[in-house]
């Protein structure tokens, strides 16, 4: 995302700090995207519980979620998120869905999971690769 695009998303933000007040990450003593919005340099866009409270309380209707996603694509992902990307490219799901899953489902009387084809994943996520994903 270019600086102009980021500035456009930030338009309206008065740094009132309401977003930071409701952020669970901030209350736990860490610094999320809401610290960035309040003009601070120390924060990680990956430290977020995706609860959407910040955006809900923003009196200016700032699209905090989109700002965070744009920032994430510029920062190194934590290993847990990287692993999800690898799974998604392999199984079409964020978690590995292997034989044991279907055995457990059968035990509970549930139908087996029919996975998406690898070719369909490639069509949908064209150009996406692990480790190069942020580019």
């Amino acid at each position, binding site marked *: 995302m270019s600086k102009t695009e980021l500035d456009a998303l930030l338009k309206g933000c008065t740094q009132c700090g309401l977003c930071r007040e409701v952020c669970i990450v901030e209350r*736990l003593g860490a610094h999320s995207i809401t610290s960035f919005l309040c003009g601070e340099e120390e924060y990680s866009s990956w430290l977020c519980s*995706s609860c959407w409270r910040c955006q809900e309380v923003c009196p200016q209707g700032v699209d905090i979620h989109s700002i965070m996603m744009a920032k*994430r*694509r510029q920062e190194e992902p934590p290993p847990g998120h990287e692993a999800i990307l690898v799974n998604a490219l392999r199984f079409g*799901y964020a*978690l590995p869905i292997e034989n044991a899953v279907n055995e457990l489902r059968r035990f509970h009387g549930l139908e087996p999971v029919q996975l998406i084809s690898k070719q369909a994943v490639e069509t949908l*996520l*064209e150009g996406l690769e692990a480790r190069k994903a942020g580019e």
Partner: protein
Amino acid sequence: MQTLAVFPGCLVLQRMPQYEKATIRVLRELGICLENIPGAACCGAPLESFTDRWRYLAIYDLALAEQMGRDVVTLCGNCANTLSRAKADMVDPGLRAQVNQALERLGLRFSGVAEIKHLIRLLSEHLDELREKVTRQLPLRVAVTHPCQAIRPSEVMGFDDPLQPEAMRRIVELTGAEVVDYEAEQDCCGSTLYLADEKLGLEAGRRKLSSAGGADVLVDACGNCQLLLERFQGLLRQSGGIEKTAVLTLPQLLGLAMGIDTDDLGIGPATARELIGSSV
């Protein structure tokens, strides 16, 4: 008989078949039949941090449901949120054409007719029928954990009060159980945070769990919440300060009040005995 396509999401598929099983069983009492979506993929949520193509996955899933002629019910807040936002974004004709171009190569097309509802929303639309199906009043104190993403952002989800949600409490109250207030009720469980920072995620969970400590049972309706309340509770108990509390998903609790066999709800005998004594 109404038929809906069920989108359990990866967490429920991989680790929580009991939640899916109880949902199917309880909805059957309401005359609602669930069908799987063969070939479905991730809702797209975890990919949004990497690429704009997360929407392609979400819309692919919706196109599959459309092909089946079904609306969609989700069991996870995260999936409800992502599928709904992707659908809302399709009002952009350029984006919609691009996604449909990719879908065409898979023999699919998105038209936008399939509705997406989280299980809480679906159940909220059937409160009267649910009330009639309750045969046993549960003498339990219940702490509910609201799935954040099923109700926010309100401009897309359009359901319940986004900051003081009530829908889940109303459903639990039908069972005769007492819904207890607790300080961290509106706080996120921390499960999604765990992926980026284990310590922070567990600390969020510890605060939530210790705040809800006075309840007999914790009730959730989301793959992420269920993961935190049940699996991570074990980790937290090892480090001390947390008492063991039973965890049920919303349809499991409803099923108990409907007198459904605990096996059919995926509730283990020990938990069943603890919660409803020898009357099972």
